[in-house]
């Protein structure tokens, strides 16, 4: 407190001198500051504080940014590769390269064999799009709807996560005019009491479109009444398509056709 008063007095003196005796210039102010020990101490402390902070920042900057760069320098120089012309006439070299080419050809063939020439569909659940392939060529693309990534929780312990599984699947069953058997979550989600397993209210007609294809674990590729949501993640895990795309996929894929979901 006392220190603050002294500092204020010193500053006031400086201000008064500056206003009344502006002609004497900055030399006087500088002399007054030098004469005021308290002010000098404050200045010194402030300068040491700023200096220390800057030093700490610089040290951290060095370790965080400069050192990784320096590590690059100590990683050696790029390996030098060149076309060794003397090897071209070397029989052993020719043998090694022909062996390598053969091996490459075999590996390449094996790798290509993973992509089927048969029809398959690729479903992109992030952008909610699909791509239909036949003979390794894309023949149709469009929007779809996939899992909403919603976790439905009840007041009790029950919970369901609505997401479309990712990976390789295949068509296990195909149906026309499918009927939806509403699972428990469909009632819970709407605040309805869950009926018994064979209750007629579980069966709903006309909501899955004209076709449905099962990919296992209860997941289907089917149509929808909510076409405005195509291109958005809104489903409970199934893949929804519009009527034309659904028909095209239904007619192109057969049982056993691959479905790649990512």
């Amino acid at each position: 407190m006392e220190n603050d008063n002294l500092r204020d007095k010193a500053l006031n003196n400086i201000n008064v001198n500056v206003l009344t005796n502006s002609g004497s210039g900055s030399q006087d102010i500088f002399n007054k500051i030098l004469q005021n020990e308290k002010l000098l101490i404050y200045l010194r402390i402030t300068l040491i504080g700023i200096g220390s902070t800057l030093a700490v920042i610089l040290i951290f900057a060095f370790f965080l940014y400069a050192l990784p760069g320096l590590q690059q320098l100590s990683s050696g120089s790029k390996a030098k590769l060149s076309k060794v012309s003397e090897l071209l006439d070397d029989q052993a070299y020719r043998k090694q390269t022909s062996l390598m080419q053969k091996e490459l050809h075999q590996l390449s063939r094996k790798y290509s064999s993973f992509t089927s020439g048969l029809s398959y569909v690729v479903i992109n659940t992030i952008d909610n799009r699909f791509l239909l392939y036949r003979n390794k060529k894309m023949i149709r693309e469009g929007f779809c709807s996939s899992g909403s990534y919603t976790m439905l929780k009840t007041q009790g312990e029950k919970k369901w996560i609505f997401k479309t599984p990712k990976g390789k699947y295949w068509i296990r069953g195909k149906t026309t005019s499918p009927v939806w058997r509403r699972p428990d979550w469909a009632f819970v989600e709407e605040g309805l009491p869950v009926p018994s397993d064979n209750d007629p209210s579980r069966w709903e007609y006309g909501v899955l479109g004209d076709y449905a294809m099962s990919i296992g674990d209860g997941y289907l590729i089917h149509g929808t009444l909510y076409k405005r949501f195509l291109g958005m993640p809104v489903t409970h895990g199934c893949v929804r398509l519009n009527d034309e795309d659904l028909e095209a996929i239904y007619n192109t894929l057969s049982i056993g056709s691959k479905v790649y979901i990512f």
Partner: protein
Amino acid sequence: MDNKELTEKSGNRRIPLVLASFAGVFIVYFIIMSMISPGKKLSAIRSEYAIQPSEQNPPDKRLYSDSAYIGMLKEKSFLKAKIAMAETDSVSLALNLADSTANLEISGVRVHSARMTGIRISKILLSGNPETICSMLSRPLNIVRDFATIKKEPLMIKMAPKDTSEFKPDVIPDTSDYEPVNYILETDSGLRIIVYQSEEVNPSDKRRLFFFDLNDRFRTLWSALKDVAVFKIPDYKPYIRIRLPKADAKVIYRAIPRKGQVAVYI
């Protein structure tokens, strides 16, 4: 002022000096250890992945400085890694740095392709013996940890309504794309794959990306400090930094599983 007082005063002055000297020595020691670490990593790669010459048919050493042969070796490694990944049913990532493509694959089928707009590779991956690096990359790299500015699974929690009066049908999901994309995939071989979005970001996103990067640098520094404190050479992690269009970067991050696999062609 008597002698005792003088000694006490000079002792008090000595403490910061000793501390500063100790800090200085530690900093120098830390710098030396950090500079040694890439070399140690390189020799670890060499000893782990060096090609064992067969006794009957030893390879000609000159082959490993022949660009055509190394080119074939790289191709072979990449194919081998991709075939190993294709034998699983999950989503995997194939990075071809030679033609700047990042492909998502499922069982060997390319399901998504993205073009890289920028690539930076740790020097260690280019300075090591090319045949050793090829040998390291001939197996898929398994992702062991990841850090990202976006969520892997943007899960929303919804409480079930108590009755039909609380039920809100047809709620349109929030699909706005506002988060900047930057992530790091750490693999079991120590290689880090760092993905940035190519698009320019606004100032607030820039700040977010800066702190994400700073956080990662602090994590690396902290881990190195822990090693150096117990007189161990810190673990150097080589990296591949790539830039991808934001949408592709997001698709790739969300598609590959947490413990997914990556094949790399350098």
